Structure formats: structure tokens, C-alpha cells
């Protein structure tokens, strides 16, 4: 974990309102799939707080980290306007990461919308390790599906709510209608709350191992402010240090 000024290497719109931003990495600690970092984009006080983003990839050779972000509010709007050689203030890597895939495990990687980042990173890592996996990506419409080159070597099964591309329906509907869930299957999910909740329920029903990347508003990102809590069976847990990856059975879904 380190605070440093990163240079932007590339920043490109990869789908409607979605950007991939690659930046130089200056910590000896290499980011792992599931981990995140925080960004401060400006020198003044509005927006004030750092914003958390997941890693969507990391290239060890060039020491380049990647993220996929969606333009939503002030910070992400400013980020979208950044070009190569401009700088951003980074703290990372933060949080825990996905557990290692076990032998014989058949992981289902489930990404919804902007939850793509950490799942894509996991898929690419498994690809490199030659670990088999199934990767599903869901979006409301094909406009929100990046061109296949942005998935690199980890091509997902595309699901769209309106059927404008790939499977018509969301990744969970795909799983339920197309796959035969077996004990060896496990879930690694990131995306909207509703999707995570359904994934957790489905895993529970089939008694599968299941991990979710959780989100919560954050102030410090390092466990100091106690702001980013969610309900866990052992009480309130901080997403930033106790997560963001949680065993979905431990979460009290509300």
C-alpha cells in the first residue's frame, strides 16, 4: 500500500459512458484481482473525498494498472476528461482479494455493468494460469457492452437485458437456464446489489462456494473512519479492509 502520483498511459471510452484508464504503478506491492485503489483527481475541495475503484488488470512487465470506470458524478466526469501523460493521485492496493481457485473448482465469474473490472482481472489471471472458468458479463443494452478487444484473452458470454446482444437476460438467468449447477461450481460476482443478492441466493440454494465484491461509500479506504460498513453475520464489517471480497454467505442481504 502506497500513495503516489500515477501517469495516465491511456484513457479510452470502451462502451457508452464506460472508460478504461491505464496508469503507471509505483508500488512494489502488485495489485491482485478483487483489490481496489482510491483516486484524488483535483487539488481543491469539491469533490473532496477520494473515490474507490477496482483494478481491472495489471501488467507486471510494464508496471501498468488498469481500471474500468463509468462516468457518474464529478470525479468520474473529470477522470473521463484526462488524457495520456496527465497525472492522478493514487493510494493502493487496498482491501482483500479473491481466494485462490481450488483444484477441480469450476468457477463462474459473474460481472454486471460496471462490476466488470475486478471480474475481468480475475478472468485474465485465470486465463494466464490456465485455470478453467466460465465468464459471464451482463448489461442492460449492447451499447454498454465493450468491443471484444477490451476483454483481451478473456472473452465472456455476453448477456443483455433487452437481448440486443448475446443471451437475452442477465447472467443469473443464463446460469439457471443454460447451466447444470454442480458442487464443483463456485460464484465470483461483482455488479449491482440486486445481482449480487440473487447470486448469493442461488449459491446458497445449490450449496456452492460464493464470493461477492461489495461496494459502500468510503471516506478513508484504509479502515480508519468506520464509514464503509455493511451487515455481516459477525456484525458490521468495513468493506475497505474486511472486504471488498466477502463470502456471500456471511453477508446479511437486505
Amino acid at each position: 500500500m502506497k500513495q503516489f502520483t500515477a501517469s495516465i498511459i491511456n484513457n479510452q471510452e470502451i462502451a457508452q459512458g464506460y472508460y478504461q484508464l491505464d496508469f503507471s504503478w509505483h508500488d512494489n506491492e502488485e495489485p491482485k484481482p478483487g483489490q481496489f485503489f482510491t483516486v484524488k483527481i483535483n487539488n481543491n475541495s469539491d469533490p473532496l473525498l477520494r473515490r474507490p475503484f477496482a483494478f481491472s488488470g495489471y501488467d507486471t512487465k510494464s508496471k501498468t494498472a488498469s481500471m474500468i470506470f463509468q462516468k457518474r458524478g464529478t470525479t468520474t466526469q473529470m477522470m473521463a476528461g484526462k488524457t495520456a501523460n496527465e497525472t492522478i493521485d493514487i493510494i493502493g492496493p487496498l482491501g482483500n482479494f479473491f481466494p485462490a481457485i481450488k483444484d477441480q473448482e469450476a468457477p463462474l465469474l459473474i460481472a454486471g455493468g460496471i462490476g466488470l473490472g475486478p471480474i475481468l482481472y480475475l478472468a485474465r489471471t485465470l486465463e494466464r494460469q490456465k485455470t478453467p472458468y466460465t465468464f459471464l458479463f451482463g448489461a442492460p443494452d449492447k451499447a454498454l457492452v465493450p468491443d471484444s478487444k477490451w476483454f483481451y484473452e478473456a472473452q465472456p458470454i455476453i448477456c443483455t437485458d433487452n437481448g440486443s446482444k448475446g443471451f437475452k437476460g442477465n447472467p443469473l438467468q443464463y446460469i439457471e437456464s443454460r447451466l447444470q449447477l454442480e458442487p464443483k461450481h463456485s460464484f465470483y460476482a461483482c455488479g449491482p446489489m440486486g445481482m449480487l443478492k440473487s447470486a448469493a441466493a442461488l449459491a446458497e440454494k445449490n450449496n456452492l462456494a460464493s464470493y461477492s465484491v461489495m461496494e459502500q461509500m468510503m471516506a478513508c479506504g484504509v479502515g480508519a473512519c468506520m464509514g464503509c460498513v455493511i451487515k455481516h453475520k459477525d456484525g458490521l464489517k468495513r468493506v475497505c479492509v474486511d472486504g471488498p471480497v466477502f463470502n456471500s454467505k456471511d453477508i446479511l442481504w437486505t
Partner: protein
Amino acid sequence: MDLSFTLRNKSLETAIGVASGTFGYGSEYEKLVDLSKIGAIFTKTVTLNKREGNDFPRIVETPSGMLNAIGLANVGIESFISQKLPMLQKMPCETICNIAGFSMEEYQEVLQKLEDSEAANFLWGYEINISCPNVCHGGLAFGVDVKAVETLTKALRQRTEKPLIIKLTPNVTDISEIAKAAEANGADALTCINTFVGMLIDIRKKIPVLANKTGGLSGPAILPLGIAAAYKVCRAVSIPVIGLGGISRWEDAIQYFMAGAKMIQVGTATFVDPSAPEKILLGVKKYCSENNYSKLSDLKID
């Protein structure tokens, strides 16, 4: 340049601390911050019993600020003594323990447990969070009531020889009255200020953003309010005042010192930039040497 801060013949090398609730117990920021540059860590408020704190969401950003309604989440005094104190003792800076209670008795009990504990010997002093609601008294915060502050300060003073710092709430008509009450009853110093009551509403969900409805406003937005409060309090009492509220740059710290504060704390700014306390220290040093100040108290203006 003498940057020290003294109470009861005890000195902190650097009159720049990190504020309660914004720095955890030090270890959270260990990798990012050179703790030896920090005068003192003011710990997250500890209460008698373990508290999970309020329901979430607990924080939200506001223009140049943030609201928090953490609800004094903490491990409780017993675990604090057994788990947190040993960790804090190893830090290369002093520790000031911030405490609170929901009744007069609770405050005293927490303090007494620290006084009675060997492990707490190394504590430099206590900061008393009086923004805590008084459950025996209609739920209004202790800190808005002159009588409550008098009684509380007197009771705690009797239990300790360590520096006793009362942390004032700004949500009052006249903060100098509360300040005088604390001074008259034995406080060694006053921290000025805790957060302002604020609220934001989620217009999509049609409910307050914070589960607790209201939260405390902190950050640059409150800088001018904190300086006004510190200026007023510094002219109402003669014990040292510790300035706090909205400090994010060394220029802000200098303003508090000019208002009359003898020490400052950095809160929300650390979230934004963990190196803020250290940068502020460097800036203050540079300003003082360029302007030929040899000690911080000389910065006070009329």
C-alpha cells in the same frame, strides 16, 4: 523553531495531532504516514461498552465537506485496553485517549478504568468528547449544557493527574460559556471544535442519506466556522486551545494559530491526503522561520 505543546509539565514535541475518529488507532495509516512526524494521535472515542455504531449509510460527501454518523463505533473500554493500547504504545508518537459516555457515570467509569490500568500508563492525556447525547437528560448532548459540562469536568478532574482536554461542540449559541465552564472546573485545555449537525436527503430514495438522518459536518467547509469558534474561545479562557475543524493546508493551520490556538489537529483532510498532517507540519515550520516566529504562541493576533 519550537513547535511543542505543553500541559501540566508534559510536552508534545509537535503541536500537530490527528483528530479522533479520523485516524483509527494509528496502525491503519502506518504504511502511508510517517507517524514520528505527528505530535499525538487522538484515538477514536472509546466508550464503556462495545458499540457497533449506527446503521449505514454512515457517511456522505457534501460540498467541500462530509457528514458522518458513525455513532461512536468502538470496541469498548476493556478490549480497548487489552487490544488497542499495546498497539498504540508501539507507535512513534504520543497517544491521547478520547473518551465518552452516555451518562455522567459512564464517562467517569471509562476514565477510571484507564487510570487503573497499567497498560494505559503511557497515555499522554485524555480528550473528552462531550458531543455525546446524555441519555439521562433528554438526549441533548452534554456539551450544549453549561451545568453538565461543569459537573462532568469537575468529576473527571478528580480522577486524573494527566492532561484533561475538553472537546467542545460548536452546536451552541455561545461556545465561550461552555469553554469557561470547563476551564473553571479544571480542564487543562479545550479542543475546538467537533462537527456541526447536518443532513442530506437522497432525492431518489426519498429518505435522508444517512440511516441516522443527521450527521456531523467536517472538512474544509467548516474551516471559517472553526476559526471563528477558536478565536472566540481563545479570548474567553486562558487555558490552551487546540484548534480543529476544516484544516487541510498549512495556511489553515496558521490561521488557527493566529486565532490563538496553541496546537491543532487534522481530521477529514487525512482521508483526502494521508500526507496532509506532515505537509502541514512542513508548511508551518517554513512559514514560522520565514516570518521569524520562534514559538507558536507568538502567532496569536489581537
